[in-house]
């Protein structure tokens, strides 16, 4: 039996990988790693072997006999350890992992960013619809997907959600916290957030945002290589050297410029305005537009139910009962519960500006009535970081339910924001949390929940 520390760590590693070490073996591994830098190197190299092994091109082997193979391999010194001469892989396929592996190996030699881009972007995935060589300054890839994403080619066929995006393809992401990032060879990125859809034209030089949010971080470019970002309501032409968020809602588009400036025109091409760093432009479908400094998300907030519900309100009906304006839950097939019909109120979604800013000491106040008890009833906030360009999201949840009220009775809920953190989607980032969507949920039972007041107060109030 071999007792070398390196051999021992190799024995332990394969079982560590399966989480199959006993507590004693776990301690032994930790002790070995802590006491000998060579063992530490070896352990790290074992992980590297695992990653590199996963990147090997797939092979087919009908019946694999480990013991028999091992015995055979030991017969010849030249073939020991399973090292033999195998024909070079003839597979033409380039998985994302293989592509990245080549990048990792090749780039370690320090090749330039340009050559890098060429290596990165060439390959089987070059499926651009244009004739001739793909233009490496504009060709775009989806590099990172979190959540549910689909890419449909111009003919409507589903294609790989990662890889080069051909001209005419539409990238869609669904669900809160979903993201997909388009990366250009020069390092420019366009990140889609939450429920968004974007179509790529002209090898990525023209992007059409149909819905949702796109956060574009664009490097300086020659005039002919600049990007044009359009929505149904406006167009940002020849954009470069800019950080800009474009949001397309049901009836409006928002442009928030964090760095640089952008010229905005109407879809007809008529110049509209220039939005500069630190400004927010909102353009409505009715043509009304406002341009203002990017507002700070307030610490205090309330639903003004005396007025009609804000544009973009998702679920819930405003009514006036007696003299009391209120919002009533409505049936809604919740996509986050596989389309199960639930009785909910879902506010308008305000990603860019946010609805309100919370810290643990913020107060949530709800005046409601209900015909029946809803023991699991929820008040939920979808929250993001203070940086609207960051895709990180989380949930604050009150799961304490709603009680049935008698005729004419209204109840108050007073909830400290800090008490809403104990849930499995709690934000992984620290306060302040910016609420961009409010949800009341009584699940599959209609308990007749009606909300007459919803208010957020700052700490101490």
């Amino acid at each position: 039996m071999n007792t070398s520390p390196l051999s021992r760590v190799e024995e332990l590693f394969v079982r560590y990988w399966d989480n199959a070490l006993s507590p004693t073996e776990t301690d032994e591994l930790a002790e070995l790693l802590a006491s000998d830098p060579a063992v530490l190197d070896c352990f790290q190299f074992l992980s590297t072997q695992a990653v590199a092994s996963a990147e090997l091109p797939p092979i087919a082997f009908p019946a694999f006999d480990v013991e028999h193979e091992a015995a055979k391999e030991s017969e010849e010194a030249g073939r020991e350890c399973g090292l033999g001469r195998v024909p070079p892989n003839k597979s033409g396929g380039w998985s994302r992992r293989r592509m990245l592996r080549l990048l990792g190996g090749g780039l370690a030699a320090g090749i330039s960013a340009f050559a890098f881009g060429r290596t990165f972007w060439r390959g089987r995935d070059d499926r651009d619809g244009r004739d001739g060589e793909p233009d490496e300054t504009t060709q775009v890839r989806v590099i990172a997907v979190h959540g549910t994403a689909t890419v449909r080619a111009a003919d409507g066929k589903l294609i790989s959600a990662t890889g080069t995006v051909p001209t005419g393809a539409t990238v869609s992401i669904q669900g809160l916290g979903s993201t997909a990032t388009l990366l250009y060879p020069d390092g420019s990125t366009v990140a889609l957030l939450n429920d968004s859809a974007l179509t790529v034209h002209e090898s990525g030089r023209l992007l059409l945002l149909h819905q949702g949010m796109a956060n574009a971080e664009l490097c300086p470019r020659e005039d002919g290589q600049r990007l044009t970002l359009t929505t149904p309501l406006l167009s940002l032409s020849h954009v470069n050297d800019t950080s800009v968020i474009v949001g397309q809602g049901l009836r409006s588009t928002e442009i928030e410029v964090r760095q640089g400036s952008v010229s905005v025109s109407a879809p007809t091409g008529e110049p509209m305005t220039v939005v500069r760093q630190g400004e927010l432009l909102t353009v409505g479908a009715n043509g009304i537009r406002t341009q203002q400094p990017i507002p700070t998300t307030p610490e205090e907030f309330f639903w003004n139910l005396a007025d009609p519900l804000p544009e973009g309100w998702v679920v819930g009906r405003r009514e006036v009962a007696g003299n009391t304006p209120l919002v009533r839950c409505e049936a809604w097939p919740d996509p986050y519960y596989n389309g199960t019909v639930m009785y909910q109120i879902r506010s308008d979604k305000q990603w860019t500006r946010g609805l309100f800013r919370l810290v643990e000491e913020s107060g949530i106040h709800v005046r409601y009535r209900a015909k029946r008890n809803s023991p699991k009833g929820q008040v939920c906030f979808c929250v993001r970081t203070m940086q609207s360009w960051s895709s990180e999201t989380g949930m604050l949840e009150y799961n304490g339910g709603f009680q049935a009220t008698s005729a004419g009775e209204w109840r108050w809920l007073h909830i400290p924001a800090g008490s809403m953190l104990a849930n499995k989607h709690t934000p992984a980032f620290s306060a302040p949390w910016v609420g961009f969507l409010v949800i009341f949920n009584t699940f599959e039972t209609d308990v007749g929940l009606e909300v007459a007041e919803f208010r957020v107060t700052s700490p101490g109030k």
Partner: protein
Amino acid sequence: MTLKLDTVVQVLLRERLRMTALAASVVRDVHTADDIYQQVVLSALENRTQFHDTGHVLAWSLRAVRHRAVDLARSRQLRPLPDEVLDLLESRIEDTAATEWSERSEALHHCLRQLTTSARGLLQMKYGEGLTALVIAKRLQRTADAVYQSLSRLHRCLRKCVEQRLGSSKNSFPSPPTEVSL
């Protein structure tokens, strides 16, 4: 001074294997490690204005990889390595020169290409498909222990192959190589 975007991108892509390997060593799942790497790349690009040199990018990214990996490992109820070991691992990776890492990586890929089909198949099942030794054992009608032995033997041979390829003067592992018969 803020780094240019393409410099940050270059560092992140160049160090992919290092970062993914660190994540994999914690979460023990190469595909998840790859996802963590991608998340950290995005996060690094979002935070790129805070980087003052390429070493800073690497250090920041390794720390971000580690935190995300540890969080995931906890959520999957994996028994983690102690923090002090992770500290050592992280600083060891960070201290290893890029050229040394690159040479070792090139040598590893050379050695992997020379594996027999059956050996590659075993590694693929384990790390590519993410199968446990128990599942592989069932598939091959062997015992899990036999699979573990074969895997550790393969790792040992890859280590020796890499050492030989790098040459004794560049031996990355100070301990003497061990002679083992398969």
